[in-house]
């Protein structure tokens, strides 16, 4: 679980395909987290199971999920900054 009481507050934008998997979740959520990894923890505490949908057991962000922080593709350890907007996007994939 995250221990991010002093962590920055960010806005996280989630893809529709993910929101539809978790009844009650929303496409845009404000939370506090110091890194992308902690952000996934925070999402999971609100909607149990969501972390596993975005991060694999390696652990790393799933191959076909992109997380953008300040316009750049991020990794689990990427730090977050106050007031930032984090975009979680599904990559071009499928068949």
């Amino acid at each position, binding site marked *: 679980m995250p221990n991010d009481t002093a962590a920055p507050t960010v806005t996280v934008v989630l893809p529709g395909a993910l929101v539809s*998997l978790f009844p009650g979740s929303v496409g845009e959520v404000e939370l506090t987290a110091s890194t992308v990894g902690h952000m996934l923890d925070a999402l999971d505490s609100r909607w149990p199971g969501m972390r596993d*949908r975005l991060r694999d057991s390696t652990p790393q962000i799933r191959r076909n999920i992109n997380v953008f922080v300040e316009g750049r593709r991020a990794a689990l350890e990427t730090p977050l900054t106050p007031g930032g907007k984090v975009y979680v996007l599904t990559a071009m994939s499928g068949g």
Partner: protein
Amino acid sequence: MARKVVILAGTKKGAFILEGDALRRAWELRGPFCDAWPINHVIADAASGAIYAGGGNEWFGPAVWKSSDLGKSWSHSSEGLAYAEGQDPIKSVWCVTRGNGSLYAGVEPAGLFRSDDAGETWSHIEGLQKHPSRKDWMPGGGGLILHSVIPHPDDDKQLWVAVSTGGMFHTGDSGKTWEPRNKGVRNDYLPEDQRYAETGQCVHSVVMAPGMPDRLYQQNHCGMYRSDDGGRSWESIEKGLPSTFGFPSAAHPRDPETLYLIPLNGDVLGRYVPDGKAAVWRTRDAGRSWEALRKGLPQENVFFGVLRQAMATDPLEPHGLYFGTNTGALFASADEGESWRCIAEHMPVITSIETLVVDG
């Protein structure tokens, strides 16, 4: 009260449910469920009526979906469905099996998981990974997958699993230790003097004969086999069949001598039904002789195949038999394969067929 058959279909674009009338003639199709995820296997727990669908999504990873109301609402979980940190992540769930009081999931890359809380959480049965042959298992056309789990009906410590390509394994201690069960099974893809190796066989499907836990039937990449000793030794039963290649197998629900297969023309010849004519092949003498069942099946320009989990029976009398094709057609017989009807077309690639009987 009349008993009705429900067909559960896994497809590349979600799970589907077909509800039949009392005569098994008219079928109502519903779906796709599971957000149209690729679903490899859909089963029902006859005791609770719960439906489980195992699969994996390109974006969101593996999950087992569950519905307790015949598909009206679904939830999903993959809690615990993961290997240790640093290992290759699980791509998808390939099979879901009820037995021994638990729920089992076979996954890609090949491994076995168990749930003791009806699919809410999962735990890894690590013993299989410790088998010395594990490092030599190779991906087949569908990946390195554990696709068949057969619980012993009378002994909850016994379980058989099949890996493509790794072969069959048996545990007698609830998964702590595993023993290969491949003696007599050919591997045409090894040098001639190594074709009957201890492990490494490409098992396509395995079923247990009803009432005979020691009798197993196997469709392999390289031949069809029967074992009468729990898989310790296998005997070829391919004589009389049009090829040695195919994917699914289905046991009669009551007669241990009767088995159904759908041979395809060959692994490098297109993997469709031989001569472009669809047939289910039946033995009534445990594989000593075979007959083709064609009535009602298309007999001209047929180029479909049937995947490993895409044939199933129902338990009624006479029993029903069903198969779904990789071209999205679903065929049904209400008379043990004697005659057939196409009951759905234009579905996505069908990966699995199972049945459930409900009152109604």
